[in-house]
């Protein structure tokens, strides 16, 4: 294997191969619109948008372009990046009380710390700044809570607050500019391993797609432990050197985040510039970027942004986010084309997203008749709604947000169900599920029940000024009325972006009648909505 890799270096880079068409069938326009809307805005399409693409399927393109400049894109990218950055941890080494916050702020504290690097990256991406800023920016994004507890000051000259109140800010503790890498949220998630090595490995993985943990090294941990000198082994034992030769110099550049007391709120919130010189003492090396000496940590951002792996990795990361699967060698040609488009747009992420949504992979709705059997294992022709998508869309449809004691139930695993519904729960589980399962079905059942009851109570049992779902019926409407059938069709389009045929509308009417007979019309409508929310056409896209 080594021989092959070395030979590869000696050859000039081959021109990208022309992508071959995937053996897939495209989604119908309304479902493509639904996919785009969920991916780029985190919402379902409106009935007017569905009308537009039903009348003219080509209207999808213009609607997609409006989504790419929609303020909700930034919110959505927070969730897309969260699946990869894995900074939304439920616990950190310090808690809200240590910062003088109320117990009621515990969830907000945890969520804010975990979101800081995501908000910064999403801001850079959605605003069309060159993606290199994710490694170089002098700013971060902060909300009021973080501004009150971390060494930050607002930077209004850099931009306005986003839809959630996060706004540009800068650290005041002498840390160098360095984008996401230099944020507290990123450091809190990754700095706890010995001498910033975990932090360095995360930088390499997330921004270079170079995962040290995937390296094909084999060693006998027991015999190394028996030697007792692990630090020396990192510099002397060949199998250890194969990673640590480049990992440790990178870690040395991040020692400003090294903590001596991980439970002290100021120690873990402040950057410590004097520790930038600790490399020779604690790691036996000075800061360097894959063999190139770094004069200071301040040079790290430029080194990262200038690395030839940085841009291709960004393409891989966003492709993974929108294709909803890891990329592999078979994607090489398509990714190379995407990179060309990305670079032509000066590394503006909206342009990359636009190109991604044009790919066969993105638009796949099913396998072609002649598709090889293995293709079904690779291409996601249907994608599961992620935990944050599910929470947002259910709220959009019904007004229901599942919150208990201030904790969003689909956004944590302390007293919530994020993991059960298929979300990652870092650091214990770092994988977002791509397949439906029993625990997910259980959470959906409960979510659908409460959401349906909420919207029925708000819109049929009281007079909602602007109903979300029930625009044409009241509790006296029955299946014998034309308005009933029209309302069911509206529900089909709003929840599934599909028109239900007569038989399916009949099934829903039968469900309504059976429940109404036993428990009344409010329960009947709630049952219909709950059934639709538990249907695969709602929770996949």
């Amino acid at each position, binding site marked *: 294997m*080594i021989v092959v890799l070395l030979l590869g270096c000696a050859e000039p880079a081959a021109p990208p191969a022309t992508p071959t068409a995937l053996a897939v069938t495209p989604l119908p326009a309304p479902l493509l619109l639904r996919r785009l809307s969920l991916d780029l805005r985190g919402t379902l399409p409106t009935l007017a948008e569905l009308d537009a693409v039903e009348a003219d399927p080509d209207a999808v393109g213009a609607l997609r372009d409006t989504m790419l400049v929609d303020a909700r894109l930034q919110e959505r990218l927070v969730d897309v990046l969260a699946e990869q950055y894995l900074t939304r941890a439920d616990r950190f080494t310090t808690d809200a009380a240590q910062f003088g916050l109320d117990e009621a702020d515990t969830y907000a504290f945890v969520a804010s710390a975990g979101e800081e690097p995501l908000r910064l990256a999403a801001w850079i991406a959605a605003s069309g700044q060159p993606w290199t800023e994710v490694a170089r920016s002098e700013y971060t994004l902060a909300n009021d809570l973080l501004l009150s507890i971390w060494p930050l000051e607002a930077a209004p000259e850099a931009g306005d607050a986003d839809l959630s109140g996060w706004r540009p800010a800068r650290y005041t503790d002498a840390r160098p500019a360095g984008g996401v890498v230099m944020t507290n949220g990123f450091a809190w998630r990754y700095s706890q391993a010995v001498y910033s090595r975990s932090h360095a490995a995360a930088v390499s993985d997330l921004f270079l797609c170079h995962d040290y943990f995937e390296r094909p090294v084999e060693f006998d941990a027991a015999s190394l432990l028996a030697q007792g000198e692990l630090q020396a082994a990192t510099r002397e034992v060949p199998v250890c050197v*194969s990673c640590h030769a480049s990992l440790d110099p990178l870690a040395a550049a991040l020692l400003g985040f090294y903590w001596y007391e991980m439970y002290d709120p100021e*120690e873990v919130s402040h950057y410590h510039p004097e520790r930038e*010189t600790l490399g020779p003492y604690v790691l036996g090396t000075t800061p360097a970027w894959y*063999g190139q000496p770094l004069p200071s940590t301040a040079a790290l951002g*430029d080194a990262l942004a200038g690395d030839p792996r940085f841009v291709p990795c960004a393409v891989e990361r966003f492709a993974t986010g929108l294709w909803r699967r890891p990329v592999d060698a078979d994607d090489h040609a398509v990714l190379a084309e995407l990179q060309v488009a990305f670079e032509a747009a000066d590394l503006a992420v909206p342009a990359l997203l636009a190109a991604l949504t044009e790919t066969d992979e993105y638009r796949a709705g099913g396998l072609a008749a002649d598709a090889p059997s293995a293709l079904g294992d690779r291409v996601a022709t249907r994608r599961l709604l992620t935990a944050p998508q599910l929470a947002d869309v259910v709220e959009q449809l019904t007004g229901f947000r599942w919150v208990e004691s201030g904790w969003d139930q689909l956004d944590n695993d302390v007293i919530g169900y994020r993991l059960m519904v298929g979300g990652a729960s870092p650091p214990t589980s770092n994988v977002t599920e791509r397949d439906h399962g029993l625990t997910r079905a259980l959470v959906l059942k409960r979510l659908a029940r409460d959401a349906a009851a909420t919207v029925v109570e708000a819109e049929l049992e009281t007079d909602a000024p602007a109903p979300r779902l029930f625009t044409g019926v009241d509790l006296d409407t029955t299946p014998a009325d034309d308005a009933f059938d029209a309302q069911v069709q509206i529900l089909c389009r709003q929840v599934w972006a599909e028109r239900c045929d007569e038989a399916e509308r009949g099934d829903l009417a039968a469900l309504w009648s059976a429940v109404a007979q036993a428990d009344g019309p409010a329960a009947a409508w709630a049952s219909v909505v709950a059934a639709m929310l538990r249907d695969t056409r709602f929770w996949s896209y």
Partner: protein
Amino acid sequence: MRVAMQRFFFAAGPLVGGVACVEGGPGPEETAAAAPTRTPTAPVWSAEEAVQHLDAALALGVPEPTHLAAAYAGAVLQGEPACPGLGTSGATVPGAGVWSAECETASGWGYSGSALYEDAVGEGSRTIRITSSFTITDPDGGRFRGGGEVLYASTTDASGTAWTGQVGGEFGWSGQPGWLGAATSEALYLVGTDAGATASLRLDGGVSSVDATLGFTGLHLDSAACAGDSPVASPGRLHVRDPGGAWFVLDLPGDCTGCGALSQGGTAHGEGCVSLAAVLDAARGDP
């Protein structure tokens, strides 16, 4: 085999030719590095300013474990039985023990957080450990921050005291003289001897103060080997960081002076000289 190759190939970033073409260092699959496009980080300070800041900061001395422990003990002994409620079971040194509090005394001392201070004095030996996350406020408005770990171990015989120490974390007490009043964050590893007439000190790590951030790499002072105020006895380095994050480095050749070649980012800036007299005082510990 094909699957395994693909997996590794992508982990290494094949789309631009693979990590093997980019990395340097002695890894078995690593070859010559391709130079990243990089903007040099321009220093904010001139060379002269860097030396001035370095010299001024060194004049304050450097944090030292026994001095810090004495300051801490003095502060915690200002408390009352219930504030901070120092638990002294087994402790023989005043101020040693453990507390966890959020309180203020009648005399105006405030205690917030927690601390453990152990100080074991034996026959010819002493060990100190402070593990803490506290803020103590004094009646004059001074703020004593202690978040981190202080370690010290010494042996004493007829020839003097030999010791090792560490000050790691955020330790500093605003309003106090010298380094204690200026320091805000430390990562210092110290090895010292005190033979009365002579002393030596080896320093690694760094310290940040309100005015400057310093670093030490193998700085070795030895008044037995060298005369004068800056007895640099073997090659070592001093570093000072400017406000933009650029490090100036003073390479001391170990010629019994505080003078050496100054550089920044690999660029030579002539020679600089500093006084290290106050730094050597740390070798003698708390008087």
